[in-house]
Protein backbone atom coordinates (compact mmCIF):
# COMPACT_ATOMS: atom_id res chain seq x y z
CA UNK A 1 0.00 0.00 0.00
CA UNK A 2 1.49 3.39 -0.94
CA UNK A 3 2.10 6.25 1.49
CA UNK A 4 -1.06 8.02 0.29
CA UNK A 5 -3.10 6.56 3.11
CA UNK A 6 -0.67 6.23 6.00
CA UNK A 7 -3.19 6.82 8.74
CA UNK A 8 -5.07 3.60 8.04
CA UNK A 9 -5.01 0.85 10.63
CA UNK A 10 -2.86 -2.09 9.76
CA UNK A 11 -5.74 -4.55 9.86
CA UNK A 12 -7.75 -2.45 7.41
CA UNK A 13 -4.73 -2.26 5.13
CA UNK A 14 -4.29 -6.01 5.37
CA UNK A 15 -7.90 -6.69 4.52
CA UNK A 16 -7.84 -4.28 1.57
CA UNK A 17 -4.73 -5.96 0.32
CA UNK A 18 -6.23 -9.39 0.79
CA UNK A 19 -9.30 -8.57 -1.26
CA UNK A 20 -7.14 -6.93 -3.88
CA UNK A 21 -8.10 -3.27 -3.54
CA UNK A 22 -5.53 -1.44 -5.63
CA UNK A 23 -4.55 1.96 -4.23
CA UNK A 24 -1.36 2.40 -6.23
CA UNK A 25 -1.50 5.60 -8.24
CA UNK A 26 0.75 4.00 -10.84
CA UNK A 27 -2.11 1.68 -11.68
CA UNK A 28 -5.19 3.78 -10.99
CA UNK A 29 -6.34 7.12 -12.36
CA UNK A 30 -8.10 8.01 -9.12
CA UNK A 31 -8.72 6.43 -5.74
CA UNK A 32 -11.35 6.75 -3.08
CA UNK A 33 -11.67 5.08 0.28
CA UNK A 34 -14.49 5.52 2.74
CA UNK A 35 -14.41 3.78 6.12
CA UNK A 36 -17.85 3.75 7.73
CA UNK A 37 -19.04 7.34 7.18
CA UNK A 38 -15.60 8.94 6.76
CA UNK A 39 -13.82 9.64 3.53
CA UNK A 40 -10.22 8.59 4.24
CA UNK A 41 -8.81 9.15 0.81
CA UNK A 42 -10.05 10.77 -2.32
CA UNK A 43 -7.73 11.85 -5.08
CA UNK A 44 -7.38 11.86 -8.80
CA UNK A 45 -4.09 11.53 -10.67
CA UNK A 46 -5.53 12.04 -14.12
CA UNK A 47 -6.68 15.38 -15.50
CA UNK A 48 -9.76 13.90 -17.16
CA UNK A 49 -11.22 12.44 -13.98
CA UNK A 50 -12.70 14.14 -11.00
CA UNK A 51 -12.99 12.18 -7.77
CA UNK A 52 -14.19 13.79 -4.56
CA UNK A 53 -16.46 13.00 -1.65
CA UNK A 54 -20.13 13.53 -2.39
CA UNK A 55 -20.57 16.14 0.37
CA UNK A 56 -17.71 18.22 -0.95
CA UNK A 57 -19.09 17.83 -4.45
CA UNK A 58 -22.56 18.99 -3.49
CA UNK A 59 -20.99 22.07 -1.91
CA UNK A 60 -18.81 22.71 -4.94
CA UNK A 61 -21.40 22.25 -7.69
CA UNK A 62 -24.90 23.65 -7.44
CA UNK A 63 -25.95 21.76 -10.53
CA UNK A 64 -25.17 18.46 -8.86
CA UNK A 65 -28.41 18.73 -6.92
CA UNK A 66 -30.17 18.00 -10.22
CA UNK A 67 -28.48 14.59 -10.18
CA UNK A 68 -28.98 13.82 -6.52
CA UNK A 69 -31.93 11.49 -5.84
CA UNK A 70 -32.85 11.85 -9.49
CA UNK A 71 -32.70 8.35 -10.95
CA UNK A 72 -33.11 6.56 -7.63
CA UNK A 73 -36.12 7.89 -5.79
CA UNK A 74 -35.77 8.84 -2.16
CA UNK A 75 -38.90 7.03 -1.04
CA UNK A 76 -38.45 3.89 -3.11
CA UNK A 77 -38.36 1.78 0.04
CA UNK A 78 -37.35 1.85 3.71
CA UNK A 79 -33.68 1.47 2.82
CA UNK A 80 -33.52 4.43 0.46
CA UNK A 81 -35.27 6.52 3.10
CA UNK A 82 -32.66 5.50 5.64
CA UNK A 83 -29.88 6.82 3.44
CA UNK A 84 -31.51 10.26 3.24
CA UNK A 85 -29.68 11.56 6.33
CA UNK A 86 -27.20 14.28 7.30
CA UNK A 87 -24.14 12.12 7.80
CA UNK A 88 -24.44 10.26 4.49
CA UNK A 89 -21.23 10.06 2.52
CA UNK A 90 -20.02 8.58 -0.73
CA UNK A 91 -18.15 9.44 -3.88
CA UNK A 92 -18.61 11.71 -6.83
CA UNK A 93 -16.79 10.51 -9.92
CA UNK A 94 -16.93 12.34 -13.20
CA UNK A 95 -15.05 11.96 -16.44
CA UNK A 96 -14.81 15.27 -18.29
CA UNK A 97 -16.20 15.61 -21.83
CA UNK A 98 -14.12 13.93 -24.51
CA UNK A 99 -11.62 12.36 -22.13
CA UNK A 100 -10.58 8.77 -22.05
CA UNK A 101 -8.51 7.64 -19.12
CA UNK A 102 -6.39 4.54 -19.52
CA UNK A 103 -6.29 3.39 -15.93
CA UNK A 104 -9.43 2.58 -14.02
CA UNK A 105 -10.72 4.51 -11.03
CA UNK A 106 -10.71 2.61 -7.74
CA UNK A 107 -13.43 3.30 -5.21
CA UNK A 108 -13.64 1.37 -2.00
CA UNK A 109 -16.30 1.36 0.70
CA UNK A 110 -15.22 -0.25 3.93
CA UNK A 111 -17.42 -1.23 6.82
CA UNK A 112 -15.55 -1.19 10.11
CA UNK A 113 -18.04 -0.57 12.90
CA UNK A 114 -21.18 -2.61 13.55
CA UNK A 115 -23.40 0.31 12.56
CA UNK A 116 -25.19 0.96 9.31
CA UNK A 117 -22.99 2.35 6.58
CA UNK A 118 -24.96 4.84 4.49
CA UNK A 119 -23.55 5.74 1.14
CA UNK A 120 -24.69 7.92 -1.72
CA UNK A 121 -22.64 7.95 -4.93
CA UNK A 122 -22.99 9.88 -8.14
CA UNK A 123 -21.10 8.89 -11.24
CA UNK A 124 -21.18 10.93 -14.43
CA UNK A 125 -19.52 10.07 -17.71
CA UNK A 126 -19.76 13.31 -19.68
CA UNK A 127 -20.27 13.39 -23.46
CA UNK A 128 -17.78 11.41 -25.53
CA UNK A 129 -15.80 10.32 -22.50
CA UNK A 130 -14.79 6.88 -21.32
CA UNK A 131 -14.69 6.00 -17.66
CA UNK A 132 -13.83 2.67 -16.06
CA UNK A 133 -14.49 2.20 -12.39
CA UNK A 134 -13.67 -0.66 -10.13
CA UNK A 135 -15.44 -0.58 -6.84
CA UNK A 136 -14.59 -2.85 -3.99
CA UNK A 137 -16.74 -3.13 -0.93
CA UNK A 138 -15.43 -4.94 2.09
CA UNK A 139 -16.09 -5.35 5.77
CA UNK A 140 -13.74 -5.60 8.71
CA UNK A 141 -12.59 -9.09 9.68
CA UNK A 142 -14.63 -10.46 12.56
CA UNK A 143 -17.34 -7.81 12.37
CA UNK A 144 -20.28 -9.53 14.06
CA UNK A 145 -23.05 -7.42 12.62
CA UNK A 146 -23.37 -4.65 10.11
CA UNK A 147 -25.34 -3.25 7.25
CA UNK A 148 -24.36 -1.48 4.08
CA UNK A 149 -26.92 0.73 2.36
CA UNK A 150 -25.70 2.33 -0.82
CA UNK A 151 -27.39 4.58 -3.34
CA UNK A 152 -25.57 4.86 -6.67
CA UNK A 153 -26.78 7.06 -9.48
CA UNK A 154 -25.08 6.72 -12.85
CA UNK A 155 -25.34 9.15 -15.75
CA UNK A 156 -23.95 8.17 -19.12
CA UNK A 157 -24.07 11.17 -21.43
CA UNK A 158 -24.10 11.20 -25.23
CA UNK A 159 -21.64 8.76 -26.79
CA UNK A 160 -19.96 8.14 -23.47
CA UNK A 161 -18.91 4.74 -22.21
CA UNK A 162 -19.00 3.85 -18.56
CA UNK A 163 -17.97 0.54 -17.10
CA UNK A 164 -18.56 -0.21 -13.45
CA UNK A 165 -17.11 -3.34 -11.94
CA UNK A 166 -18.22 -4.04 -8.40
CA UNK A 167 -16.54 -6.72 -6.34
CA UNK A 168 -18.15 -7.44 -3.00
CA UNK A 169 -16.17 -8.89 -0.13
CA UNK A 170 -18.35 -9.08 2.94
CA UNK A 171 -18.43 -11.44 5.86
CA UNK A 172 -21.06 -13.86 7.11
CA UNK A 173 -22.90 -11.36 9.32
CA UNK A 174 -23.27 -8.45 6.97
CA UNK A 175 -26.47 -7.31 5.33
CA UNK A 176 -26.10 -5.42 2.07
CA UNK A 177 -28.80 -3.49 0.26
CA UNK A 178 -27.49 -1.35 -2.60
CA UNK A 179 -29.94 0.69 -4.63
CA UNK A 180 -28.56 1.67 -8.02
CA UNK A 181 -29.90 3.07 -11.24
CA UNK A 182 -28.51 4.53 -14.43
CA UNK A 183 -29.63 6.78 -17.26
CA UNK A 184 -27.97 6.32 -20.62
CA UNK A 185 -28.26 8.98 -23.33
CA UNK A 186 -27.88 8.73 -27.13
CA UNK A 187 -25.07 6.42 -28.21
CA UNK A 188 -24.04 5.78 -24.62
CA UNK A 189 -22.76 2.46 -23.35
CA UNK A 190 -23.17 1.28 -19.79
CA UNK A 191 -21.36 -1.88 -18.71
CA UNK A 192 -21.92 -3.23 -15.25
CA UNK A 193 -20.16 -6.20 -13.72
CA UNK A 194 -21.19 -7.43 -10.34
CA UNK A 195 -19.16 -10.05 -8.54
CA UNK A 196 -19.79 -11.62 -5.17
CA UNK A 197 -18.09 -14.80 -4.10
CA UNK A 198 -17.58 -14.53 -0.36
CA UNK A 199 -20.00 -15.45 2.38
CA UNK A 200 -22.50 -12.76 3.31
CA UNK A 201 -25.68 -12.72 5.35
CA UNK A 202 -27.87 -11.18 2.69
CA UNK A 203 -27.39 -9.15 -0.44
CA UNK A 204 -30.46 -7.68 -2.01
CA UNK A 205 -30.37 -5.39 -5.01
CA UNK A 206 -32.03 -4.92 -8.34
CA UNK A 207 -30.41 -2.05 -10.24
CA UNK A 208 -32.34 -0.45 -13.09
CA UNK A 209 -30.85 0.97 -16.27
CA UNK A 210 -32.89 3.40 -18.32
CA UNK A 211 -31.77 3.30 -21.92
CA UNK A 212 -33.41 6.61 -22.73
CA UNK A 213 -31.09 7.56 -25.57
CA UNK A 214 -31.23 6.26 -29.12
CA UNK A 215 -28.62 3.64 -30.04
CA UNK A 216 -27.67 3.17 -26.43
CA UNK A 217 -26.44 -0.08 -24.93
CA UNK A 218 -26.43 -1.79 -21.57
CA UNK A 219 -24.44 -4.92 -20.76
CA UNK A 220 -25.06 -6.21 -17.26
CA UNK A 221 -23.07 -9.21 -16.06
CA UNK A 222 -22.98 -10.85 -12.71
CA UNK A 223 -20.98 -13.64 -11.18
CA UNK A 224 -22.44 -14.92 -7.96
CA UNK A 225 -21.19 -17.59 -5.61
CA UNK A 226 -23.29 -18.22 -2.52
CA UNK A 227 -21.64 -20.15 0.28
CA UNK A 228 -23.50 -21.86 3.17
CA UNK A 229 -26.28 -19.71 4.64
CA UNK A 230 -25.67 -16.77 2.33
CA UNK A 231 -28.67 -15.27 0.60
CA UNK A 232 -27.94 -13.38 -2.58
CA UNK A 233 -30.97 -11.87 -4.24
CA UNK A 234 -29.85 -9.83 -7.17
CA UNK A 235 -30.39 -9.07 -10.82
CA UNK A 236 -30.63 -6.28 -13.33
CA UNK A 237 -33.48 -4.53 -15.02
CA UNK A 238 -33.09 -2.61 -18.28
CA UNK A 239 -35.84 -0.40 -19.64
CA UNK A 240 -35.25 0.24 -23.32
CA UNK A 241 -36.81 3.51 -24.43
CA UNK A 242 -34.42 4.74 -27.13
CA UNK A 243 -34.57 3.72 -30.77
CA UNK A 244 -31.96 1.18 -31.90
CA UNK A 245 -31.00 0.45 -28.31
CA UNK A 246 -30.15 -2.92 -26.89
CA UNK A 247 -29.59 -4.69 -23.61
CA UNK A 248 -27.81 -7.81 -22.54
CA UNK A 249 -28.06 -9.33 -19.08
CA UNK A 250 -25.76 -12.25 -18.28
CA UNK A 251 -25.43 -14.09 -15.05
CA UNK A 252 -23.58 -17.06 -13.65
CA UNK A 253 -24.67 -18.35 -10.27
CA UNK A 254 -23.06 -21.06 -8.18
CA UNK A 255 -24.56 -22.28 -4.97
CA UNK A 256 -22.27 -23.98 -2.50
CA UNK A 257 -25.00 -24.21 0.09
CA UNK A 258 -26.40 -20.69 -0.23
CA UNK A 259 -29.59 -19.38 -1.75
CA UNK A 260 -29.48 -17.35 -4.93
CA UNK A 261 -32.29 -15.48 -6.56
CA UNK A 262 -31.05 -14.60 -10.01
CA UNK A 263 -33.33 -11.99 -11.48
CA UNK A 264 -33.41 -10.24 -14.78
CA UNK A 265 -35.92 -8.05 -16.52
CA UNK A 266 -35.81 -6.39 -19.91
CA UNK A 267 -38.58 -4.04 -20.90
CA UNK A 268 -38.79 -3.33 -24.63
CA UNK A 269 -40.42 0.08 -24.73
CA UNK A 270 -39.15 1.29 -28.10
CA UNK A 271 -40.32 -0.02 -31.48
CA UNK A 272 -37.07 -1.86 -32.28
CA UNK A 273 -35.73 -2.69 -28.83
CA UNK A 274 -33.42 -5.68 -28.65
CA UNK A 275 -32.57 -7.60 -25.54
CA UNK A 276 -31.15 -10.88 -24.39
CA UNK A 277 -31.12 -12.35 -20.93
CA UNK A 278 -28.96 -15.32 -20.03
CA UNK A 279 -28.97 -16.91 -16.64
CA UNK A 280 -26.93 -20.02 -15.89
CA UNK A 281 -26.80 -21.73 -12.54
CA UNK A 282 -24.65 -24.50 -11.12
CA UNK A 283 -25.37 -26.38 -7.91
CA UNK A 284 -22.25 -27.62 -6.15
CA UNK A 285 -23.92 -28.82 -2.99
CA UNK A 286 -26.98 -30.76 -1.82
CA UNK A 287 -27.88 -27.76 0.32
CA UNK A 288 -28.90 -24.38 -0.96
CA UNK A 289 -30.89 -23.39 -4.01
CA UNK A 290 -30.86 -21.30 -7.12
CA UNK A 291 -34.01 -19.61 -8.30
CA UNK A 292 -33.87 -18.02 -11.75
CA UNK A 293 -36.49 -15.38 -12.42
CA UNK A 294 -36.11 -13.99 -15.92
CA UNK A 295 -38.72 -11.54 -17.15
CA UNK A 296 -39.27 -9.98 -20.53
CA UNK A 297 -41.81 -7.34 -21.39
CA UNK A 298 -42.58 -6.18 -24.91
CA UNK A 299 -44.52 -2.99 -25.49
CA UNK A 300 -44.27 -2.91 -29.27
CA UNK A 301 -44.81 -5.56 -31.95
CA UNK A 302 -41.28 -5.49 -33.34
CA UNK A 303 -39.19 -5.78 -30.25
CA UNK A 304 -36.76 -8.67 -30.17
CA UNK A 305 -36.36 -10.08 -26.66
CA UNK A 306 -35.10 -13.49 -25.67
CA UNK A 307 -33.95 -15.37 -22.64
CA UNK A 308 -32.07 -18.49 -21.81
CA UNK A 309 -31.88 -20.07 -18.39
CA UNK A 310 -30.40 -23.34 -17.25
CA UNK A 311 -29.55 -24.70 -13.83
CA UNK A 312 -27.88 -27.97 -13.14
CA UNK A 313 -25.06 -29.75 -11.47
CA UNK A 314 -21.62 -30.00 -12.98
CA UNK A 315 -21.67 -32.39 -15.96
CA UNK A 316 -20.02 -35.77 -15.24
CA UNK A 317 -19.34 -36.11 -18.94
CA UNK A 318 -17.18 -32.98 -18.89
CA UNK A 319 -15.29 -34.10 -15.79
CA UNK A 320 -14.54 -37.44 -17.45
CA UNK A 321 -13.43 -35.67 -20.63
CA UNK A 322 -10.87 -33.59 -18.74
CA UNK A 323 -9.74 -36.63 -16.74
CA UNK A 324 -9.04 -38.37 -20.05
CA UNK A 325 -6.45 -35.63 -20.59
CA UNK A 326 -4.83 -36.30 -17.24
CA UNK A 327 -6.71 -33.88 -14.97
CA UNK A 328 -7.55 -35.35 -11.56
CA UNK A 329 -11.22 -35.22 -10.62
CA UNK A 330 -10.63 -32.13 -8.47
CA UNK A 331 -8.60 -30.38 -11.13
CA UNK A 332 -11.26 -31.14 -13.70
CA UNK A 333 -14.00 -29.83 -11.44
CA UNK A 334 -12.03 -26.66 -10.76
CA UNK A 335 -11.38 -26.07 -14.45
CA UNK A 336 -15.03 -26.55 -15.35
CA UNK A 337 -16.28 -24.28 -12.56
CA UNK A 338 -13.77 -21.68 -13.61
CA UNK A 339 -14.89 -21.95 -17.22
CA UNK A 340 -18.49 -21.65 -16.12
CA UNK A 341 -17.77 -18.40 -14.28
CA UNK A 342 -15.74 -16.96 -17.09
CA UNK A 343 -18.27 -14.80 -18.88
CA UNK A 344 -16.96 -13.16 -21.98
CA UNK A 345 -17.44 -9.54 -20.96
CA UNK A 346 -17.17 -7.30 -23.95
CA UNK A 347 -15.52 -3.91 -23.80
CA UNK A 348 -13.78 -4.39 -20.49
CA UNK A 349 -10.21 -3.09 -20.07
CA UNK A 350 -7.59 -5.77 -19.47
CA UNK A 351 -6.83 -4.50 -15.96
CA UNK A 352 -10.43 -5.13 -14.95
CA UNK A 353 -10.55 -8.48 -16.67
CA UNK A 354 -7.49 -9.44 -14.62
CA UNK A 355 -9.22 -8.23 -11.49
CA UNK A 356 -12.17 -10.53 -12.12
CA UNK A 357 -9.83 -13.45 -12.78
CA UNK A 358 -8.10 -12.78 -9.48
CA UNK A 359 -11.42 -12.78 -7.66
CA UNK A 360 -12.25 -16.14 -9.22
CA UNK A 361 -8.81 -17.48 -8.23
CA UNK A 362 -9.35 -16.46 -4.63
CA UNK A 363 -12.55 -18.41 -4.30
CA UNK A 364 -11.64 -21.40 -6.45
CA UNK A 365 -10.11 -23.45 -3.68
CA UNK A 366 -13.10 -23.05 -1.41
CA UNK A 367 -15.48 -24.28 -4.08
CA UNK A 368 -13.99 -27.69 -4.68
Amino acid sequence: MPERIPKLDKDIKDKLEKVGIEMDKEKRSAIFLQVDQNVETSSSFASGVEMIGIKQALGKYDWLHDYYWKVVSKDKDQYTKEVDVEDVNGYFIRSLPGTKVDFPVEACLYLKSPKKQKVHNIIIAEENSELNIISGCASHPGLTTGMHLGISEFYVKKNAKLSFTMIHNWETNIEVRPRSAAIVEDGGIYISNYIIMNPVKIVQSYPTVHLNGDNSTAIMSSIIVAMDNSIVDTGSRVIIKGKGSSAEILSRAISKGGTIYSRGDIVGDSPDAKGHLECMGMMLSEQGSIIAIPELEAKHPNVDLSHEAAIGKIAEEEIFYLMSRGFTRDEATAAIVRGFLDIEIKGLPIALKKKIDEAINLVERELI
Partner: protein
Amino acid sequence: MLRVVNLGAEVEGTPILNHVNLYIKEGQTYVLFGPNGNGKTSLLMTLIGNPSFKITYGRIIFKGQDINDLSTDQRVKMGMGISFQYPPKVSGLKLIDMLFNCAKQSGTDPSKIYEYAQMLNMEKFLNRSLNVGFSGGEVKRSEVLQLLTLNPDLVLFDEPDSGVDLDNIAIIGSAVGDLLDRKKNKDDRKKSGLIITHQGHILDYVDADYGLILYKGMVACVGDPYDMLDEISKKGYEGCVEKCLKGFQNSIKT
Protein backbone atom coordinates in the same frame (compact mmCIF):
# COMPACT_ATOMS: atom_id res chain seq x y z
CA MET B 1 1.53 -52.77 -24.41
CA LEU B 2 -2.13 -53.72 -23.93
CA ARG B 3 -3.59 -57.07 -23.10
CA VAL B 4 -7.32 -57.45 -22.67
CA VAL B 5 -8.26 -60.77 -21.16
CA ASN B 6 -11.77 -62.16 -21.41
CA LEU B 7 -13.30 -58.75 -20.71
CA GLY B 8 -16.97 -58.25 -19.97
CA ALA B 9 -18.53 -54.86 -19.31
CA GLU B 10 -21.94 -53.30 -18.84
CA VAL B 11 -23.49 -49.87 -18.94
CA GLU B 12 -26.47 -49.13 -16.71
CA GLY B 13 -26.84 -52.84 -16.04
CA THR B 14 -26.90 -53.85 -19.72
CA PRO B 15 -24.00 -56.02 -20.92
CA ILE B 16 -22.23 -54.39 -23.86
CA LEU B 17 -18.92 -56.27 -24.05
CA ASN B 18 -18.63 -60.05 -23.89
CA HIS B 19 -15.46 -62.09 -23.55
CA VAL B 20 -13.29 -59.60 -25.39
CA ASN B 21 -9.68 -60.64 -25.91
CA LEU B 22 -7.13 -58.34 -27.43
CA TYR B 23 -3.35 -58.15 -27.50
CA ILE B 24 -1.61 -55.10 -28.87
CA LYS B 25 2.15 -55.13 -28.81
CA GLU B 26 4.44 -52.12 -28.69
CA GLY B 27 4.56 -50.52 -32.14
CA GLN B 28 1.38 -52.17 -33.41
CA THR B 29 -1.72 -50.47 -34.70
CA TYR B 30 -5.07 -52.20 -34.78
CA VAL B 31 -8.20 -51.13 -36.59
CA LEU B 32 -11.59 -51.77 -35.08
CA PHE B 33 -14.54 -52.21 -37.43
CA GLY B 34 -18.11 -53.09 -36.61
CA PRO B 35 -21.73 -52.09 -37.20
CA ASN B 36 -23.21 -49.17 -35.26
CA GLY B 37 -24.22 -49.90 -31.72
CA ASN B 38 -22.10 -53.05 -31.39
CA GLY B 39 -19.82 -51.80 -28.64
CA LYS B 40 -16.81 -50.18 -30.32
CA THR B 41 -17.07 -46.93 -28.38
CA SER B 42 -17.93 -48.93 -25.27
CA LEU B 43 -14.69 -50.90 -25.59
CA LEU B 44 -12.65 -47.70 -25.76
CA MET B 45 -14.57 -46.21 -22.84
CA THR B 46 -13.94 -49.32 -20.77
CA LEU B 47 -10.24 -49.26 -21.66
CA ILE B 48 -9.84 -45.60 -20.64
CA GLY B 49 -11.96 -46.09 -17.51
CA ASN B 50 -15.17 -44.13 -18.10
CA PRO B 51 -17.03 -44.60 -14.78
CA SER B 52 -20.34 -45.34 -16.58
CA PHE B 53 -18.82 -48.53 -18.00
CA LYS B 54 -18.43 -51.24 -15.39
CA ILE B 55 -16.14 -54.20 -15.84
CA THR B 56 -18.11 -57.33 -14.96
CA TYR B 57 -15.32 -59.84 -15.51
CA GLY B 58 -11.90 -60.14 -17.08
CA ARG B 59 -8.85 -57.93 -16.91
CA ILE B 60 -7.19 -55.04 -18.67
CA ILE B 61 -3.41 -55.23 -18.50
CA PHE B 62 -1.55 -52.10 -19.60
CA LYS B 63 2.24 -52.06 -19.65
CA GLY B 64 2.19 -55.21 -17.58
CA GLN B 65 -0.06 -53.79 -14.87
CA ASP B 66 -3.67 -54.68 -14.09
CA ILE B 67 -5.47 -51.34 -14.44
CA ASN B 68 -9.06 -52.46 -13.74
CA ASP B 69 -9.22 -50.36 -10.60
CA LEU B 70 -7.37 -47.31 -11.83
CA SER B 71 -9.21 -44.06 -12.52
CA THR B 72 -9.11 -42.46 -15.94
CA ASP B 73 -6.51 -39.85 -15.02
CA GLN B 74 -4.26 -42.55 -13.57
CA ARG B 75 -4.50 -44.55 -16.79
CA VAL B 76 -3.69 -41.42 -18.77
CA LYS B 77 -0.71 -40.70 -16.57
CA MET B 78 0.51 -44.23 -17.35
CA GLY B 79 0.43 -43.38 -21.03
CA MET B 80 -3.03 -43.98 -22.46
CA GLY B 81 -4.78 -41.44 -24.61
CA ILE B 82 -8.09 -41.22 -26.42
CA SER B 83 -9.78 -39.11 -29.06
CA PHE B 84 -13.53 -38.99 -28.67
CA GLN B 85 -16.18 -39.58 -31.26
CA TYR B 86 -18.37 -36.89 -29.69
CA PRO B 87 -16.50 -34.95 -27.01
CA PRO B 88 -18.56 -32.62 -24.82
CA LYS B 89 -18.37 -28.83 -25.06
CA VAL B 90 -16.63 -27.20 -22.13
CA SER B 91 -17.64 -23.57 -22.13
CA GLY B 92 -15.12 -21.15 -20.68
CA LEU B 93 -12.20 -23.59 -20.92
CA LYS B 94 -10.04 -22.48 -23.80
CA LEU B 95 -8.44 -25.01 -26.13
CA ILE B 96 -5.05 -23.42 -25.45
CA ASP B 97 -5.42 -23.98 -21.70
CA MET B 98 -6.31 -27.61 -22.31
CA LEU B 99 -3.20 -27.91 -24.48
CA PHE B 100 -0.98 -26.33 -21.84
CA ASN B 101 -2.29 -28.91 -19.41
CA CYS B 102 -1.61 -31.74 -21.87
CA ALA B 103 1.91 -30.42 -22.43
CA LYS B 104 2.49 -30.31 -18.69
CA GLN B 105 1.28 -33.90 -18.31
CA SER B 106 3.61 -35.20 -20.99
CA GLY B 107 6.54 -32.86 -20.46
CA THR B 108 6.10 -31.58 -24.01
CA ASP B 109 7.79 -28.24 -24.67
CA PRO B 110 4.89 -25.74 -24.72
CA SER B 111 6.31 -24.08 -27.84
CA LYS B 112 5.45 -27.30 -29.66
CA ILE B 113 1.78 -26.51 -29.11
CA TYR B 114 1.86 -23.80 -31.76
CA GLU B 115 3.72 -26.03 -34.17
CA TYR B 116 1.10 -28.77 -33.75
CA ALA B 117 -1.75 -26.28 -33.94
CA GLN B 118 -0.39 -25.03 -37.23
CA MET B 119 -0.03 -28.57 -38.48
CA LEU B 120 -3.69 -29.23 -37.73
CA ASN B 121 -4.85 -25.84 -38.92
CA MET B 122 -6.22 -25.01 -35.48
CA GLU B 123 -4.40 -21.76 -34.62
CA LYS B 124 -7.59 -19.78 -34.92
CA PHE B 125 -9.31 -21.94 -32.33
CA LEU B 126 -6.72 -21.76 -29.56
CA ASN B 127 -8.56 -19.02 -27.68
CA ARG B 128 -12.00 -20.46 -28.17
CA SER B 129 -13.90 -22.51 -25.63
CA LEU B 130 -13.26 -26.19 -26.09
CA ASN B 131 -15.56 -27.64 -28.78
CA VAL B 132 -18.05 -24.79 -28.44
CA GLY B 133 -19.21 -23.96 -31.94
CA PHE B 134 -16.59 -26.25 -33.53
CA SER B 135 -17.67 -28.00 -36.74
CA GLY B 136 -17.40 -31.78 -37.04
CA GLY B 137 -13.98 -31.60 -38.69
CA GLU B 138 -12.74 -29.02 -36.20
CA VAL B 139 -13.72 -31.23 -33.29
CA LYS B 140 -11.72 -34.12 -34.76
CA ARG B 141 -8.69 -31.91 -35.42
CA SER B 142 -8.89 -30.52 -31.91
CA GLU B 143 -8.98 -34.04 -30.47
CA VAL B 144 -5.90 -35.09 -32.42
CA LEU B 145 -4.14 -31.84 -31.49
CA GLN B 146 -4.72 -32.56 -27.81
CA LEU B 147 -3.33 -36.06 -28.27
CA LEU B 148 -0.21 -34.80 -30.04
CA THR B 149 0.46 -32.58 -27.05
CA LEU B 150 -0.36 -35.33 -24.56
CA ASN B 151 1.87 -37.76 -26.46
CA PRO B 152 0.51 -41.08 -25.15
CA ASP B 153 2.07 -44.50 -25.72
CA LEU B 154 -1.23 -46.23 -26.44
CA VAL B 155 -3.63 -44.11 -28.45
CA LEU B 156 -7.30 -44.92 -28.88
CA PHE B 157 -9.12 -43.16 -31.72
CA ASP B 158 -12.89 -43.22 -31.95
CA GLU B 159 -13.85 -42.53 -35.56
CA PRO B 160 -11.27 -39.80 -36.21
CA ASP B 161 -12.34 -39.72 -39.88
CA SER B 162 -16.13 -39.71 -39.59
CA GLY B 163 -17.80 -36.63 -41.00
CA VAL B 164 -14.48 -35.19 -42.13
CA ASP B 165 -13.82 -34.00 -45.70
CA LEU B 166 -10.92 -35.44 -47.68
CA ASP B 167 -8.54 -32.49 -47.17
CA ASN B 168 -9.01 -32.72 -43.46
CA ILE B 169 -8.66 -36.50 -43.46
CA ALA B 170 -5.22 -35.99 -44.98
CA ILE B 171 -4.29 -33.57 -42.19
CA ILE B 172 -5.68 -35.81 -39.47
CA GLY B 173 -4.25 -38.96 -41.07
CA SER B 174 -0.78 -37.49 -41.13
CA ALA B 175 -1.00 -36.52 -37.45
CA VAL B 176 -2.32 -39.96 -36.51
CA GLY B 177 0.61 -41.42 -38.45
CA ASP B 178 2.97 -39.32 -36.31
CA LEU B 179 1.24 -40.26 -33.09
CA LEU B 180 1.52 -43.97 -33.86
CA ASP B 181 5.09 -43.91 -35.19
CA ARG B 182 3.77 -45.14 -38.54
CA LYS B 183 6.28 -42.99 -40.41
CA LYS B 184 9.16 -44.80 -38.73
CA ASN B 185 10.70 -48.12 -39.69
CA LYS B 186 8.82 -51.07 -38.37
CA ASP B 187 11.47 -51.90 -35.80
CA ASP B 188 11.63 -48.35 -34.45
CA ARG B 189 7.94 -48.05 -33.67
CA LYS B 190 7.19 -47.63 -29.98
CA LYS B 191 3.61 -46.33 -30.00
CA SER B 192 0.56 -48.55 -30.20
CA GLY B 193 -2.89 -47.70 -31.45
CA LEU B 194 -6.47 -48.81 -31.77
CA ILE B 195 -8.48 -46.96 -34.39
CA ILE B 196 -12.23 -47.19 -34.88
CA THR B 197 -13.26 -46.41 -38.44
CA HIS B 198 -16.22 -47.13 -40.69
CA GLN B 199 -15.13 -46.08 -44.14
CA GLY B 200 -11.47 -46.70 -43.45
CA HIS B 201 -10.40 -43.40 -45.05
CA ILE B 202 -7.82 -42.97 -42.35
CA LEU B 203 -6.16 -46.19 -43.54
CA ASP B 204 -5.03 -44.38 -46.68
CA TYR B 205 -2.67 -42.44 -44.40
CA VAL B 206 -2.01 -44.88 -41.59
CA ASP B 207 -0.85 -48.38 -42.41
CA ALA B 208 -2.39 -50.53 -39.73
CA ASP B 209 -1.14 -53.99 -38.79
CA TYR B 210 -4.37 -55.81 -37.91
CA GLY B 211 -8.08 -55.39 -38.24
CA LEU B 212 -10.83 -56.55 -35.89
CA ILE B 213 -14.58 -56.68 -36.20
CA LEU B 214 -16.51 -56.09 -33.02
CA TYR B 215 -19.89 -57.71 -33.32
CA LYS B 216 -22.51 -57.81 -30.55
CA GLY B 217 -19.88 -56.89 -28.02
CA MET B 218 -17.53 -59.67 -29.14
CA VAL B 219 -14.41 -59.75 -31.27
CA ALA B 220 -15.70 -61.73 -34.25
CA CYS B 221 -12.87 -61.46 -36.78
CA VAL B 222 -9.17 -60.73 -36.79
CA GLY B 223 -7.18 -60.26 -39.96
CA ASP B 224 -5.48 -58.01 -42.42
CA PRO B 225 -7.22 -54.63 -42.12
CA TYR B 226 -7.15 -53.88 -45.84
CA ASP B 227 -8.60 -57.26 -46.85
CA MET B 228 -11.18 -56.82 -44.14
CA LEU B 229 -12.21 -53.38 -45.36
CA ASP B 230 -12.51 -54.79 -48.83
CA GLU B 231 -14.71 -57.66 -47.65
CA ILE B 232 -16.87 -55.37 -45.54
CA SER B 233 -17.50 -53.14 -48.54
CA LYS B 234 -18.40 -56.16 -50.67
CA LYS B 235 -20.35 -58.37 -48.29
CA GLY B 236 -21.30 -56.00 -45.50
CA TYR B 237 -20.61 -56.68 -41.84
CA GLU B 238 -23.09 -59.53 -41.62
CA GLY B 239 -21.44 -61.40 -44.48
CA CYS B 240 -17.98 -60.95 -43.02
CA VAL B 241 -18.95 -61.95 -39.54
CA GLU B 242 -20.76 -65.02 -40.80
CA LYS B 243 -17.65 -66.14 -42.62
CA CYS B 244 -15.37 -65.46 -39.67
CA LEU B 245 -17.61 -67.21 -37.18
CA LYS B 246 -17.77 -70.23 -39.44
CA GLY B 247 -13.97 -70.35 -39.46
CA PHE B 248 -14.03 -69.73 -35.72
CA GLN B 249 -16.35 -72.69 -35.11
CA ASN B 250 -14.26 -74.90 -37.39
CA SER B 251 -11.16 -74.00 -35.45
CA ILE B 252 -12.90 -74.95 -32.23
CA LYS B 253 -13.90 -78.32 -33.68
CA THR B 254 -10.42 -79.22 -34.92
